């Protein structure tokens, strides 16, 4: 036993050769592979957004050569950001890294499958980048038929292939998480002792496993109709184009919750830690995650109110969409109640989490406006919708992702980052984000349609504000990349538990050893053992609980 106890002092970052990364089956390393990949895609998608914002600074089209180039740009922005950044973001990076650590396991249930899913994403991503280089797609990320199948003369089939392949990466990740949470929990880790992050990821995995295949079949049908010219969706060939929208949104609406639920899980970890209070309403938050995942599958028709869908179906979908507000509001109230009478510390992760709560609330409430048929008919396909889903996806999902990265960076790398720069980046992102997207609410309500390359001069002031905000936002996103990478130059200094958090993942070393725990811990208590009196964790270093 002593020989291998020494072996276990080695942390998971110790082997440096390329092969040791490319063939790794360690969930922590695979998490980092994903992190590098999606960071790359984030900046690719961000570059597209930057050019779009520059184009929209003036009413006339002057930056890009043609409206067609603009179409390709917003399509690539959407495809890359959604399928190659947001959907893999928290699940594949933080979920991979944290789930085994949080439930007290040595790895995920299927480590090789886990590596395979990264390679699958890389294949899909390579196709996406190839499309970007060789001409692009102009259908929008939604691939609406019959434009995508019959009229677009861009690379629709390769794009459909890329999405199809990336979908399988997502399915395999979700499958791995579901099996791991079910079968690999440490002794004593009952369902109601699971951290809420794990609950959120579990709910997310349900969506990935049950929703993604429908998207795969929808884009496969698009490819078949386009290649063989047989009727499926094209009305000229006897098809019904709205059927595509049904199949597409059956996945793509729940996909919003793939992006959002994990962020909610991150916030549920950060808020108690930096308030020194046990989470308020643990079970309600846990069940609301599952409720959001289930209800999320019942509302897709609210994307189709003006598409020719039956009005009665529209009414049902509208009603069901309002239902999703209930579990979402439960979460917001519970996070807020957790902070009440807590000893709140505004460290970087907490700033991001607070930003998430505010921006998500904005995004969610405007979502309720859009869920009511009458308002949706008015603002459909305007910048109001664009602003709404960016409040959810960027203000929500990306804030949560960055908050999670800042919270667990000491665990992942063993290093602390500059707290000053961290706070600065959180504030910059928050301010830049609101300046970018709040004007878009106004623009949309005034009637500026989305996906246009030119616009009437009366909209210019708000568009310039938005572009100015985007440049601030860009600084806010580059800043963490710089100081987090810079922190790697120092020797590990974080210690096992710099935030004095009480989760299981903080009871092992930072960075964790190869198989996470020297001995599998026996869990005897819930995940949020905080008390505000003296702002002291009950046992920050976890000495009694795990040994």
């Amino acid at each position: 036993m002593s020989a291998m106890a020494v072996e276990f002092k080695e942390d998971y970052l110790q082997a440096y050769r390329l092969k040791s990364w490319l063939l790794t089956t360690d969930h922590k390393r695979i998490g980092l592979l994903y992190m590098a990949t999606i960071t790359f895609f984030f900046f690719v998608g961000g570059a597209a957004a930057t050019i779009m914002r520059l184009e929209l600074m003036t009413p006339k089209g002057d930056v890009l050569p043609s409206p067609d180039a603009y179409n390709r740009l917003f399509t690539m922005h959407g495809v890359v950001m959604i399928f190659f950044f947001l959907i893999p973001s928290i699940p594949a990076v933080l979920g991979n890294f944290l789930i085994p650590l949080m439930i007290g396991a040595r790895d995920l249930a299927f480590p090789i499958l886990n590596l395979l899913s990264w390679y699958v994403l890389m294949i899909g991503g390579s196709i996406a980048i190839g499309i970007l280089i060789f001409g692009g797609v102009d259908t929008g990320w939604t691939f609406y038929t019959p434009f995508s199948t019959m009229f677009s003369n861009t690379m629709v089939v390769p794009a459909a292939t890329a999405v199809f392949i990336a979908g399988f990466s997502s399915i395999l990740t979700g499958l791995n998480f579901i099996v791991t949470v079910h079968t690999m929990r440490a002794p004593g880790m009952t369902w109601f002792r699971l951290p809420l992050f794990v609950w959120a990821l579990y709910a997310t995995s349900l969506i990935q496993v049950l929703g993604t295949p429908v998207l795969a079949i929808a884009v496969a049908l698009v490819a078949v109709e386009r290649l063989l010219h047989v009727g499926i969706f094209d009305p000229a060939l006897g098809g019904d184009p709205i059927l595509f929208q049904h199949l597409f949104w059956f996945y793509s609406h729940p996909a919003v919750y793939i992006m959002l639920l994990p962020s909610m899980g991150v916030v549920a970890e950060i808020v108690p830690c930096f308030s020194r209070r046990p989470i308020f309403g643990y079970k309600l938050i846990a069940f609301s995650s599952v409720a959001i995942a289930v209800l999320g599958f019942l509302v897709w028709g609210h994307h189709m109110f003006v598409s020719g869908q039956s009005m009665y179906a529209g009414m049902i979908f509208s009603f069901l969409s309002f239902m999703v507000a209930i579990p979402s509001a439960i979460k917001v109230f519970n996070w807020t109640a957790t902070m009440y009478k807590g000893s709140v510390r505004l460290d970087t992760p907490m700033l991001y989490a607070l930003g998430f709560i505010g921006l998500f609330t904005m995004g969610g409430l405007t979502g309720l406006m859009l869920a009511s048929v009458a308002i949706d008919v008015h603002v459909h396909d305007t910048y109001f919708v664009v602003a709404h889903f960016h409040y959810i996806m960027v203000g929500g999902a990306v804030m949560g992702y960055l908050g999670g990265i800042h919270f667990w960076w000491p665990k992942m790398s063993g290093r602390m980052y500059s707290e000053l720069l961290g706070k600065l980046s959180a504030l910059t992102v928050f301010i830049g984000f609101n300046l970018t997207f709040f004007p878009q609410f106004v623009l949309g309500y005034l009637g500026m349609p989305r996906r246009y390359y030119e616009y009437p001069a009366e909209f210019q002031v708000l568009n310039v504000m938005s572009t100015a905000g985007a440049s601030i936002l860009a600084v806010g996103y580059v800043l963490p990349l710089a100081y987090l990478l810079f922190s790697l130059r120092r020797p590990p200094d974080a210690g096992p538990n710099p935030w004095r958090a009480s989760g299981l993942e903080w009871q092992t070393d930072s960075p964790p050893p190869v198989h996470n725990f020297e001995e599998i811990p026996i869990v005897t208590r819930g995940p949020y053992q905080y008390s505000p009196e003296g702002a002291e964790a009950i046992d920050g270093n976890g000495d009694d609980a795990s040994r």
Partner: protein
Amino acid sequence: METVTTHRASGPPAAPSDEPILEVQFDDLEQQHEASSVGMWVFLATEVMFFGGLIAAYAVYRAISPSEVALASQHLNVGLGCLNTVILLGSSLSMALAVRAAQLQSRRNLLWFLAITAALGACFLGVKAVEYYQEYREHLIPGWNFQIPAQVAAKSSSLPLDPRRFEMFFVLYFFMTGLHAFHLIVGIALVSVMALLTWRRWFSGSGETQIEVTGLYWHFVDVVWVFLYPLLYLIDVQS
């Protein structure tokens, strides 16, 4: 095996070769078996939704143009479809017996049943190929040689029939049965690999977990066909 025994507080003694290997992330064989089995079940849930998208398309077009769908399905060969169902049900029986043989560690029986399963799967594909060839002869393959059959064209001039929906049935038919055939090909490959590995005595233990999980997949492909057969072939056989 070293890594397994080293990090465990009370590791088991070095496993004899007829015991299945325990992967490092698991505590015991039962957990490992459980994870594999649940993993396959979750994958099958994914597969249900994968076929589900097609079934939804089928349901929509059958709901909005029932007469075209009924008319088109009369051009399928009910007898060959029935024969294929019998073949697949038989292959499922054989697969179930293979799983039993693996559980009982009876290597000879296991090899036999796996071989029978794969052979019946190949028979199914053969019959399916005959059907596809008949449909090719009747010019019923959309995107390749599709022509509205003469008697249907005659009917559609007198009845309100949409010939494009008639063709759509065959688009869905070929997509659904083609996807099913693809799954069956994967299944045959899996079963063959399992048979080969059993024959080469590659498995530690009797490969029980692997065979069982392969069996789950095989039965799922069978269940899909059990639904496809009445949905595609038996819509309107009387007229």
